[in-house]
């Protein structure tokens, strides 16, 4: 008995390697295909994204204008941390964050109304998303033109008997106008993301709530908001990241960072340090700091996102 079993297992083990060998050559071929097909894309990304991160890190320890290089250790970083301008720029960035609650509030209210298929909802969905496809340079110039001293907004103010305001030459009013442009351009995107979360809600929940006598506002509070939690977290973090990394287009065409650096944001300062004052080392150090902030935000987001098991 024992012997036969051994015999059987032996004959099986003799058969396995042959089929395994055949399988390996096929698998190996498939592996080669997979490798070769993803290689060109990978090379592009390594050469123009991964390598530059390393290069920027190295540059951040150098004093350089792009031609001469000189190792100075952490001096770029210490200079940044002690620079009043950098402090001011980060404070300006924080001020731009005021646009986000507005975007989220507007976005969630409109998305719920669209979800309820309020009269004309398809039209609203199209119109509210419209500014999202415009370039920051287009939106920026529209708003700058609208808010110049003798532009349409001031003309309207004058018609209603107000004094015209020189919006773009004062720090806070300039930030206000830029934030307005950000809201105008950004809330349609938030709305669509939140709407996609809403459509996934089980409508039985609302029925049950109605049976329990919950009104519109309570349903919004206790069903809608918890159900679109993931989308809310996503929209919030994406907008915070955007505030620290993608305001360049708006600032560049609306105020060029002025008056006197008062609307200069972090990403705009990186650009200025590198290409106006030829201080690429300090520019890189600042860029690496921004990179750190983004990495931190991404990790925080991952922690708050309730992920379903996806591959």
């Amino acid at each position, binding site marked *: 008995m024992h012997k036969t079993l051994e015999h059987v297992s032996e004959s099986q083990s003799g058969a396995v390697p042959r089929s395994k060998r055949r399988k390996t050559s096929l698998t190996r071929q498939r592996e080669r295909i997979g490798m070769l097909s993803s290689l060109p894309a990978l090379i592009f990304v390594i050469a123009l994204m991964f390598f530059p991160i390393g290069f920027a890190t190295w540059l951040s320890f150098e004093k350089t204008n792009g031609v001469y290089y000189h190792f100075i250790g952490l001096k770029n970083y210490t200079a940044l941390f002690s620079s009043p301008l950098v402090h001011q720029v980060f404070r300006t960035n924080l001020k731009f964050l005021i646009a986000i609650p507005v975007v989220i509030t507007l976005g969630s209210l409109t998305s719920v109304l669209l979800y309820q298929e309020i009269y004309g909802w398809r039209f609203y969905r199209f119109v509210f998303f419209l500014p999202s496809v415009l370039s920051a340079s287009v939106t920026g110039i529209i708003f700058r033109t609208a808010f110049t001293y003798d532009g*349409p907004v001031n003309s309207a103010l004058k018609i209603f008997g107000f004094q015209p305001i020189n919006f773009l030459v004062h720090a806070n009013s300039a930030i206000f106008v830029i934030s307005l442009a950000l809201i105008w351009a950004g809330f349609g995107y938030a709305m669509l993301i939140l709407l996609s979360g809403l459509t996934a809600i089980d409508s039985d929940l609302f029925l049950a709530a109605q049976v329990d006598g919950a009104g519109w506002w309570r349903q919004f509070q206790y069903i809608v908001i918890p159900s679109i939690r993931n989308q809310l977290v996503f929209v919030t973090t994406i907008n915070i990241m955007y505030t620290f990394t993608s305001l360049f*287009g708006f600032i560049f065409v609306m105020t060029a960072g002025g008056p006197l650096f008062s609307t200069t944001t972090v*990403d705009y300062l990186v650009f200025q340090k590198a290409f106006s004052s030829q201080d690429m080392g300090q520019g890189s150090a600042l860029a690496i700091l921004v990179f750190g902030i983004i990495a931190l935000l991404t990790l925080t987001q991952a922690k708050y996102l309730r992920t379903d098991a996806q591959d």
Partner: protein
Amino acid sequence: MQKLSWQMQLLISMVLGSVALSTLWPLFYVLVTSSRTLNDYLTNIYGIPKEFTFSNFQILWKNYSLGLAARNTIEVVGISMVCCLTLSSLAGFGLAKYPYRGSKYVNWAFIAIMLLPSTVLIIPIYLVLSKLHLVGHLPGLMIVYIATNIPFSVFFLRAAFKAVPDSILEAARIDGAGFFRTFRSIAMPSAKASFTTLAVLQFLGMWNELLYAYLILPDQSTRLLTPALANIGGRYTSNPPLVAAALVITATPTLVLLAFSSKYLVRGVTSGIGSS
């Protein structure tokens, strides 16, 4: 969700209507202004134009070489899109259906780098490109657009190709179809909707991009539309109709695209988060 009372509906419609108006009116205003003469505009900036003119567009086309900028933009966006879509769909298909040792890490690499802001890249990329004498040449910008668009595209297409049933691919293999044949005749047709969505997103991203375009192509002869627009907008503040015409030229293609592909665009925008 509970229906709102009709009074509430009316009130909300009025609020939403005014928000819609604040979106549409500036665009309409720009369009009207672009067809006015400067004198006509200055007499009454809200007025109805006395005469329609195309002179602003003609001036931009001739004197400010916006036609050339448009051609450069179309060339850069077109070639970059073709290259990026080709490389990304090959990689996406390979990673979805031909896993290899380490393919998991390659996939992670694309995902990890997806949100990298251009702020981090501009200085090193500028230095590399100037070493390679590519600053000031269209291909320099093209390779940047191709590379920076690859991570999301691979991520997006990999998900689309994952949905293609293995049994069909297996059947194709037994019928003797090789990688490219399977890719072309089975994978691509089944991922057509995702592919279109991605193409729309890429077009918008590249067409609207300003920072790289401004840095890598600084000369008038190779300038793209967005930097040209920024330049005109900065220099001719006293001539709003001219600026408006430049805005119309830059914005029209993206708005037309939205009108024709809003279905795909909505899909693309909402695919970034796992709710699909």
